């Protein structure tokens, strides 16, 4: 193996302060994951506040302003501070391990990206501490809802500035990932031997590089409009609110895939291991990832069907097309499980939960890709159900699958299996009790983004059920937290390869040493650790 020139080779000590100045990709990855989980906790509390307010018609638990702030910050935190950066965090931990590299290509830049992400998130929430309150224009901050006249507080500016920081951080991380994968692969680790997770992160990085500059641009323009007398989005002064939507969704739709492609990778790593088979259709899975990434760049205006300002057939056709590579992935996962010796440990349970929930999210997505259906469902709870099935039922379950699967590699101990299974079933049942009623509420015509609603037939009951489900999900998350505490107190060492894993990270110690490997096995396929343990 090539040797790394070590700038500073002092032995690793256990001082917590050293984590703060670490440039080791594993520590940065773990700090990313921990930070995103804290933000997830905050977003979850906001979700419970929202659902408690909506539990009954005419409820006054939250004021309209507080509700607006809660759902704006809930959406922002879930998307920008939890799901997307969790993918970047787990990739930070895994990519160098999976390709046999000693670290990321640019370790200091990597640390800088993490800290900028952390400060960006804090900046967003800092708005709550101002006397004008937090951001309240929704996670999309559509103009003119986000202009000074409607949303005049400093919180909205801090929201935009925080997201600019997160955007820059994400772009730097994506550059780091791509450089690392292209340049620092171990001898024999050709591109077509990369683990599927690493491939998915290459596709995700490409998406970030293509889409995130548009977010930075639109937020800078918004701030110019709000603070420096600009009129980019002011229709009265010759600007265009539709321009905001174009720029925002040119980022926003690919962002959906930034939040899902890493987790397609997670599932593609877990399913073969617990099916005791190689992945079915490796090449197809890789090509499907890039097909999804490419097509996702051309469908932004399906979020704008009802504006009357876009060519609906163009965007509808491309949106339908995305179902094909996504279907290929499902086919390959099922093909992998087919006639496999499947075992149902907690990571596999969450992986299967991901597939079931994401299927509902995907099918409802195909429905709203049709403009006539979208005109009917626009602005209703049907859409809330759809994207929560994609990002909550999909990404969230894959996040838990990833945590249970790679926890032993991160910390050397396995999370408790009984608590894990209990947490899975509580979350799975709770999730569907929360969000399936929203499909029905959407069909009944209940609009989203309202802080209260009249007592119309069915609305109150379905909302009460959804709120009950949300609290059940909170119990599921609490069980996960309890699992961490129990494991930290009396977890037993898991060994280097507790699951019989296939990719290179399972060939090193748990947790891995500084610079990752003391020796590497020969790499002759996409399953080097399996090959090492089962020589032909």
């Amino acid at each position, binding site marked *: 193996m*090539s040797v*790394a020139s070590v700038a500073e080779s002092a032995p690793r000590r256990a001082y917590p302060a050293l984590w703060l100045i670490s*440039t080791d990709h594993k520590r940065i990855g773990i700090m990313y994951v921990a930070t995103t989980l804290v933000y997830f906790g905050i977003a979850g509390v906001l979700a419970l506040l929202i659902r408690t307010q909506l539990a009954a018609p005419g409820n006054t638990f939250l004021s309209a302003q507080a509700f607006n702030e809660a759902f704006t910050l809930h959406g922002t935190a879930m998307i920008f501070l939890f799901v997307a950066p969790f993918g970047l965090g787990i990739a930070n931990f895994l990519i160098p391990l999976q390709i046999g590299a000693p670290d990321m290509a640019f370790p200091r830049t990597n640390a800088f990206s993490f*800290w900028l992400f952390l*400060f960006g998130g804090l900046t967003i929430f*800092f708005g709550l501490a101002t006397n004008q309150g937090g951001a309240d224009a929704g996670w999309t901050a559509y103009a003119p809802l986000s202009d000074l006249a409607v949303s005049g507080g400093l919180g909205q500016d801090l929201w935009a500035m925080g997201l600019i920081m997160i955007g820059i951080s994400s772009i730097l991380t994506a550059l780091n990932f791509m450089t690392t994968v292209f340049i620092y692969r171990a001898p024999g680790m050709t*591109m077509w031997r990369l683990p599927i997770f690493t491939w998915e992160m290459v596709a995700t990085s490409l998406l970030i590089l293509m889409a995130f500059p548009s977010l930075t641009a639109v937020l800078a323009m918004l701030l110019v409009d709000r603070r420096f007398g600009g009129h980019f989005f002011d229709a009265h002064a010759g600007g265009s609110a539709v321009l905001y939507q174009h*720029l925002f969704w040119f980022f926003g739709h690919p962002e959906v895939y930034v939040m899902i492609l890493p987790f397609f990778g997670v599932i593609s790593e877990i399913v073969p291991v617990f099916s005791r088979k190689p992945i079915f259709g490796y090449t197809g899975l890789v090509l499907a990832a890039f097909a999804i990434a490419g097509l996702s760049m051309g469908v932004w205006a399906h979020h704008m069907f009802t504006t009357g300002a876009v*060519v609906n057939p163009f965007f509808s056709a491309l949106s339908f097309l995305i179902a094909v590579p996504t279907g290929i992935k499902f086919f390959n996962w099922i093909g992998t499980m087919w006639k496999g010796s499947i075992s149902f440990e907690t990571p596999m349970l969450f992986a299967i939960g991901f597939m079931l929930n994401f299927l509902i999210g995907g099918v409802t997505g195909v429905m709203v890709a049709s403009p006539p259906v979208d005109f009917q469902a626009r602005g209703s709870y049907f859409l809330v159900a759809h994207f929560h099935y994609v990002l909550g039922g999909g990404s969230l379950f894959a996040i838990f699958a990833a945590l249970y699967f790679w926890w032993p590699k991160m910390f050397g101990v396995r999370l408790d299996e009984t608590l894990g299974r209990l947490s899975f079933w509580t979350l799975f049942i709770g999730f569907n009790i929360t969000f399936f009623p929203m499909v029905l509420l959407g069909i009944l015509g209940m609009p989203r983004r309202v802080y209260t609603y009249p007592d119309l037939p069915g609305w109150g009951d379905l909302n009460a059920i959804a709120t009950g489900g949300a609290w059940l999900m909170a119990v599921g998350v609490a069980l996960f937290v309890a699992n961490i505490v129990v494991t930290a107190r009396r977890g037993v060492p898991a060994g280097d390869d507790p699951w019989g894993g296939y990719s290179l990270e399972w060939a090193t110690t748990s947790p891995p040493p500084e610079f990752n490997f003391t020796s590497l096995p020969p790499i002759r396929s996409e399953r080097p650790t399996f090959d090492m343990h089962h020589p032909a």
Partner: protein
Amino acid sequence: MTVALRLFVSSMAFGLVIGTAYWFCSHDATGTVLLCLMAAGLGFAAGFMQFAEREAALPGDEKNALPGDGAGAEIGVFTVRSAWPPWLAATIAAFLIGLLISPIIAIAAACAIVAVCWQLVRESR
């Protein structure tokens, strides 16, 4: 052509095709410019890989390479720790927040950014 280069070239071609198709379907300047800029960015990356880095021979691209084949070759400098990345992030955050709430904070933060960047350069020498 390496896999990475093929990836950028095919993504650029896709951007050009879809940008052209979009223009003829919609005559919308905003979307067309966005798609063409995307293709241009990918083309720049592809061009860099083709012309600037074409001499690079990577052991990771060799199918039959063994772990020992790259032994002894220096592949980079990997720092274990550095205090400056968190400071750089903090000062940039202070600068951006300062733009919103106080020019004095922004100016002070800008000076701090320069100082931290200088420290990073010194450290990396």
